[in-house]
């Protein structure tokens, strides 16, 4: 068999094996059981708690958890703005990169606080090393905040009636120190030994073999690249992200980085099974997510390996695949695999340029982000899936004429309203803003926004808002996005799309947790079965197709049909 295909299959199989083991470990961390890292990390956690004046044992209800989450995020936002707008004159700036103007700083800080990492700057010229270190901080803590929110929902799903759902700060710090930190150590070290720079030296100047002068950007990249992948952040150290040889030096590092992208999102699904002792429920969720993932992955693999028909028409052999925007050391299969993995999880790092994907394989990453729950971002991917479960429970309950119940709690009008608002928010943000942007570019075709004409130009705008609203951060990077319009509107979309979809599921779970627990009986609609899984899958397909089909028809589908 083709070594490229064997390569991507091994990446996936290794991811699943590691995610299963990590899931067990995460369940222990969330439930406060002993783990093998306790001797090292207990003192560290206690130091965090003592300095921050936090009592990890005082439990919070869902509202207080959300207040804690939002407060700490406001502090991060202000701190980030301060650094981004002043880093030009602050230390650790050997390349003398400038501070950001307000609109770009707003976009960048929102983007990193919201775990999106949409980058309207290039790492080599747009931020100082101090800036990179602060962005690296956000890559840890925004991921930790997402996982802490998921931990609150996990706690709320237990078989009991409860008001208090654990301590938010406790979940947050443990997610950072016990899950993200050890894994980042391992990945960063692997990267360093394969050639990713880790130094505070600035650009180097070398004379090439032909005698040209060439500047080479370096920097403390390995540390950041590790957490960028593990925390589903995606914000690269260098402009072209993991396609850059320094950021992703060879096929082995590509495997490690790609595993890191969906490791924690998949592990969290298994963790739910271990935590609640409902392994069948976890397998149902995993099954639905995987089915959706494969539906996007397989056609994309085949299309990218098949090449660009327009170039084939010129008489150029396309048997090595569609190579525009791709790197030889990864090849089309590992590039397509990465493109789907990074968009179904809300990672958004890239190892090939999505703008140059063939039309339909440009659509599948968009669909991955429009669903945003096939594995999903660390913590928040599960929260999005939770919304689909609630909707499916309700619809299935109505279909069979039973009171909708999920894990022994009645799902009633209030929860359904929240679930529907959260679901509708995503298409609303994407479609309204894409529509507005399309209208503006129609009025002002002279704006330097679009790098490609026609349908593909529309796709660039649709992709940008889809990526912002999915908190993904990848882009059709041809879009001239460092302008006040794109900086501000994408910033607003990212803010709303980060926090409401955390508030909604936490609120639903919190309200359900307080309700009376009704033990399962023969009259209960079971949610851990394959038939319910098919129901959830159908709900996802129908809702997403109805929301986005028309927009996709104007962009990638039209481009495909015009080829």
């Amino acid at each position, binding site marked *: 068999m083709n*070594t*490229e295909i064997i*390569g991507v299959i*091994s990446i996936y199989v290794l991811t699943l094996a590691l995610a299963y083991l990590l899931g067990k470990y995460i369940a222990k961390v969330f439930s406060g059981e002993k783990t093998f890292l306790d001797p090292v990390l207990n003192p560290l956690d206690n*130091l965090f708690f003592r300095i921050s*004046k*936090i009592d990890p044992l005082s439990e919070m209800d869902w509202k207080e958890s959300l207040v804690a989450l939002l*407060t*700490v995020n406001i*502090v991060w936002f202000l701190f980030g703005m301060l650094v981004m707008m002043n880093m030009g004159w602050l230390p650790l700036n050997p390349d003398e990169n400038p501070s950001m103007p307000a609109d770009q700083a707003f976009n960048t800080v929102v983007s990193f606080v919201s775990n999106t990492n949409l980058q309207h700057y*290039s790492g*080599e010229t747009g931020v100082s090393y101090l800036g990179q270190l*602060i962005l690296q*901080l956000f890559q*840890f803590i925004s991921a930790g905040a997402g996982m802490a929110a998921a931990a609150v929902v996990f706690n709320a799903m237990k078989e009991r009636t409860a008001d208090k759902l654990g301590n938010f700060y406790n979940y947050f*710090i443990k997610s950072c120190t016990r899950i993200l930190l050890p894994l980042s*150590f391992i990945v960063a070290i692997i990267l*360093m030994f394969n*050639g990713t720079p*880790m*130094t505070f030296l600035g650009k180097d100047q*070398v004379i090439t*073999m*032909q005698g*040209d002068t060439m500047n*080479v950007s370096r920097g*403390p990249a*390995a540390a950041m690249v590790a957490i960028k992948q593990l925390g589903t952040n995606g914000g690269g150290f260098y402009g*072209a992200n993991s*396609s850059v040889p*320094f950021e992703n030096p*060879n*096929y082995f590092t590509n*495997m490690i980085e790609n595993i890191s992208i969906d490791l924690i999102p998949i592990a969290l699904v298994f963790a739910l099974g271990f935590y609640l002792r409902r392994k069948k429920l976890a397998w149902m969720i995993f099954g639905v997510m995987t089915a959706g993932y494969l539906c996007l992955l397989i056609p994309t693999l085949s299309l990218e390996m098949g090449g*660009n028909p327009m*170039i084939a028409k010129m*008489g*150029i*052999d*396309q048997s*090595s*695949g*569609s*190579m525009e*925007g*791709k*790197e*030889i*050391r*990864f090849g089309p299969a590992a590039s397509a695999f990465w493109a789907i993995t990074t968009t179904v999880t809300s990672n958004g790092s*890239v190892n090939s*340029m999505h703008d140059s994907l*063939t039309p339909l394989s440009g659509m599948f990453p968009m669909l991955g982000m429009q669903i945003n729950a096939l594995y999903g971002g660390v913590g928040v991917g599960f929260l999005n899936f939770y919304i689909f479960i609630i909707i499916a429970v309700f619809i299935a309950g109505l279909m069979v004429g039973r009171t909708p119940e999920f894990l022994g709690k009645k799902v009633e009008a209030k929860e359904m309203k929240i679930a529907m608002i959260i679901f509708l928010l995503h298409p609303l943000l994407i479609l309204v803003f894409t529509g507005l942007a399309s209208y503006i570019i129609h009025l002002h075709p002279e704006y330097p926004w679009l*790098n*490609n*004409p*026609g349908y593909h130009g529309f*796709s660039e705008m649709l992709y940008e808002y889809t990526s912002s609203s999915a908190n993904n951060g990848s882009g059709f990077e041809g879009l001239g996005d460092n302008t006040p319009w794109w900086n501000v509107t994408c910033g607003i979309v990212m803010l709303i799309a980060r926090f409401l979809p955390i508030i909604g599921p936490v609120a639903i779970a919190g309200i359900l947790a307080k309700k009376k627990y009704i033990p399962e009986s023969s009259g209960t609609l079971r949610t851990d079965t394959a038939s319910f899984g098919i129901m959830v899958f159908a709900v996802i397909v129908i809702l997403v197709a109805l929301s986005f089909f028309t927009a996709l028809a104007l962009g990638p589908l039209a*481009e495909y049909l*015009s080829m």
Partner: protein
Amino acid sequence: MKSHLIPAILLTICCNIFFSGIYTVAMLGVAQIAPNQGKGEIVTVNGKYYYENIAQKFTDDKYFWSRPSAVDYNAAGSGGSNKGPTNPDYLAQVQARIDTFLAHNPSVKKSEIPAELVTASGSGQDPNLSPQGAFVQVARIATARNISEEKITSLVNESIEKPLLGLFGTTKVNVLKLNIALDNLK
């Protein structure tokens, strides 16, 4: 919200010291035993050094050419072309690359040119070619250097890097190393 403000500020300071500071310093420490102390892998030739993984610009007929770069091989400003697959300007650019290549390599048939030689890489710094991407350039280099084609072909064959463990990924050559070996050929 007020009762959470002080912990939030203190927690942010704590996290900053740890995840920006201590974690980075620890990694810098480890980097001291990494290849070239974490400053990027280099190859040294006759007292000059080059970054092994970063493509250089080769336009001379006597060197193997790297893949096209949308950023003109700028290693301090990476990037791809971000051209869509059906963009007419882009397709015209590909056609121009085909024509240039054929003009410099008159013995090569169009169907022998692999796609990577007429398409720009993602980073603009792709250091590799497929073996076919090197083989189609052999005749040109042989003429320019007045060395037999067999010698250069065997040089390419020696430089081929197999997939990882022979199982995973692509087969490729490193253009820089190939050109260094070419200059050493007598």
